[in-house]
């Protein structure tokens, strides 16, 4: 009986029904696509230089936001990611200035990232300090480290052994660093889909106690994730600084808010346990579009903060609205004819 009725309903709903395929990522993707098209058609964004700059922005944001998403999925947060990135980039640039090639300075950045993130992880997991406070303290420590660095945290006149990564492009407009970030994204998409570790991440974020009962050591998972974050932040710092000839360690201070914005806009719950990397990737594109759009549409730079705030609010409000109810509402409107038919039959 049940099967029969559902089958009938299925046949009745056979035509295109947008309510069926509606989910958060879809909505966000559509918004992003519209924003991109509007931007592309209205401005001189379509010049190759504009697109290249845009893709460069996306690449470092994407890498760092993946790291932040993984951390936030466990219910933790790292607000020292921005300053950490500055220190990684400085270390890499310092080594590059001494004349070493990329196979030396990239590992240096990663090692510095792992060390700094490891300290965060130890404080959070060993001493049970809430992550937001622990990383808040670490921001202050990093800010202090900036002026202890030689030459005030600046490295100038970087040669092509450092900048070639950021300036090389494929097909004339796709920067190589964008390809790197895409490879990282692809790896993590597969990783989150098929690895056993990713299930642990969701378990720890969703219900810590249940995770313990299921034989997972939450502290171990969180610690491993912080080390992973260090690696990603190290790579991200390379992606951020290599297009430039000057590395200024404190220029990334405050950038962690961008990463968190992209993550939250992408639909990841700040309480942990819910969220997808696809969402984060779309969120990154949306955030970068907003930043670019402000410049290309002729607004001053200072509009971008306000618009960014409004966008987070709107997107988060959209996420809070019950999608199921919305779906039901849409279905009711779309299947109005069908209901009248049914009523006639009965």
């Amino acid at each position: 009986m049940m099967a029969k009725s559902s089958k009938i309903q299925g046949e009745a709903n056979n035509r295109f029904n947008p309510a069926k395929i509606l989910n958060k990522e879809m909505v966000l993707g559509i918004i992003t696509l519209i924003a991109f098209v509007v931007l592309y058609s209205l401005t001189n964004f379509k010049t190759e230089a504009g697109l290249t700059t845009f893709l460069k922005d996306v690449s470092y944001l994407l890498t760092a936001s993946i790291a932040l998403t993984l951390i936030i999925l466990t219910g933790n947060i790292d607000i020292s990611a921005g300053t950490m990135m500055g220190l990684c980039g400085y270390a890499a640039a310092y080594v590059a200035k001494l004349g070493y090639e990329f196979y030396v300075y990239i590992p240096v950045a990663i090692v510095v990232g792992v060390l700094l993130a490891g300290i965060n992880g130890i404080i959070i997991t060993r001493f049970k300090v809430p992550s937001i406070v622990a990383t808040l303290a670490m921001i202050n420590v990093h800010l202090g480290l900036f002026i202890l660095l030689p030459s005030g945290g600046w490295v100038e006149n970087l040669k092509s052994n450092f900048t070639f990564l950021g300036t090389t492009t494929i097909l004339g407009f796709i920067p190589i660093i964008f390809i790197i970030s895409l490879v990282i994204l692809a790896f993590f998409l597969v990783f989150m889909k098929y690895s056993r570790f990713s299930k642990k991440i969701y378990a720890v974020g969703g219900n810590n106690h249940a995770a313990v009962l299921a034989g997972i050591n939450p502290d171990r998972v969180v610690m491993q994730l912080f080390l992973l974050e260090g690696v990603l932040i190290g790579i991200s710092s390379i992606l951020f600084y290599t297009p430039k000839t000057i590395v200024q360690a404190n220029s990334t201070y405050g950038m962690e808010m961008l990463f968190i914005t992209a993550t939250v806009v992408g639909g990841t719950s700040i309480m942990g346990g819910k969220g997808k990397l696809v969402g984060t990737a779309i969120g990154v594109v949306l955030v970068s579009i907003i930043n670019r759009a402000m410049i290309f549409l002729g607004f001053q730079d200072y509009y971008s903060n306000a618009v960014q705030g409004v966008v987070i609010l709107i997107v988060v409000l959209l996420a809070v609205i019950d999608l199921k109810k919305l779906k039901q509402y849409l279905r009711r409107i779309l299947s109005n004819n069908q209901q009248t038919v049914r009523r006639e039959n009965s």
Partner: protein
Amino acid sequence: MEHKKAAKKPKFTITYIGILIALLVGLIALFAVLAEGTILKPSVLFGLTENVTEVGLMALALTFVITTGGIDLSVGSTMALSAVMLGMTYETTNNIALAIFVSFLTGLACGVLNGVIIAKTKIAPLVTTLATMSLYYGIARIISGTNIFSTYPEGFTFLAEKKLFNIVPYQFILFVVFYIIFALFFYRANIGRYLRAIGYNEKAAKFMGVGVGTNKFFIYTLTGLMCSLASIIYLSRLPAAKPDIGLNLNLEAITAVVLGGTNIMGGVGSVSGTFIAVLILGVLRKGLQLIGLGGNIYNFILGILLVICLIGFSYLDYVKKKRLRN
């Protein structure tokens, strides 16, 4: 019987407030040794608070917010926006009373927006105030553009410049008054208990009959108002309103609250702890200035201090749990 019970109790228990006071005294002593006693002069000792009053006022309100398990990252931006509105209104109308009124109205509006979103929707306070932080900062930047509003009437700077008996700055007295008011509300009035109940278990508080939404709305609005008060004090000391004055202040205010022993996860709060922590920040800043170390060294030491305090806090918690188990 009574006497025996009292005798059994340990005479001296280490409390977190005690540690904080010891830390404060220790820091003063340390800087007194390092800076050859300059810090012990009464004018310098009371002048410590000059740099931290605005952080302190925001931290007092933030203590309420963090006690409920929430957080407000937008305090710095709200303060900057209020300051910019004050400066702009005064520059266009030349009416300081109106300017101060507009500043308070701005703070109220910012707080109300935070409060409505947090109380009425399920959005986490961290996300909401992250968004409004950029929003208020952005609005302040849009309003001011490249201008810096730096013309204020003669008497406007009295809070910062005038001192009672030429020793105690009036802003310190204001800070103490607000501390007493907040402490009375927190320790003696119903709202303090309500806030702790919400922070400890929101659902249980709701079933108990606590108006969770109302209380949350109230404290976020209060935080907005305190931010505008802080902006007035900031401007009376440094009469230059520009949007980036509040960038580091939200971290500093949260640091003060957490250093004071308020649990960031909610349920445990300490207004007195916040008060002492703000004084510690003042001593650190002034002391480092006296030694000749400025700028980010302050942040560095603050960060290290915060980490040590947090670890100490978790250790105390561990000891307490162990004692309960035995």
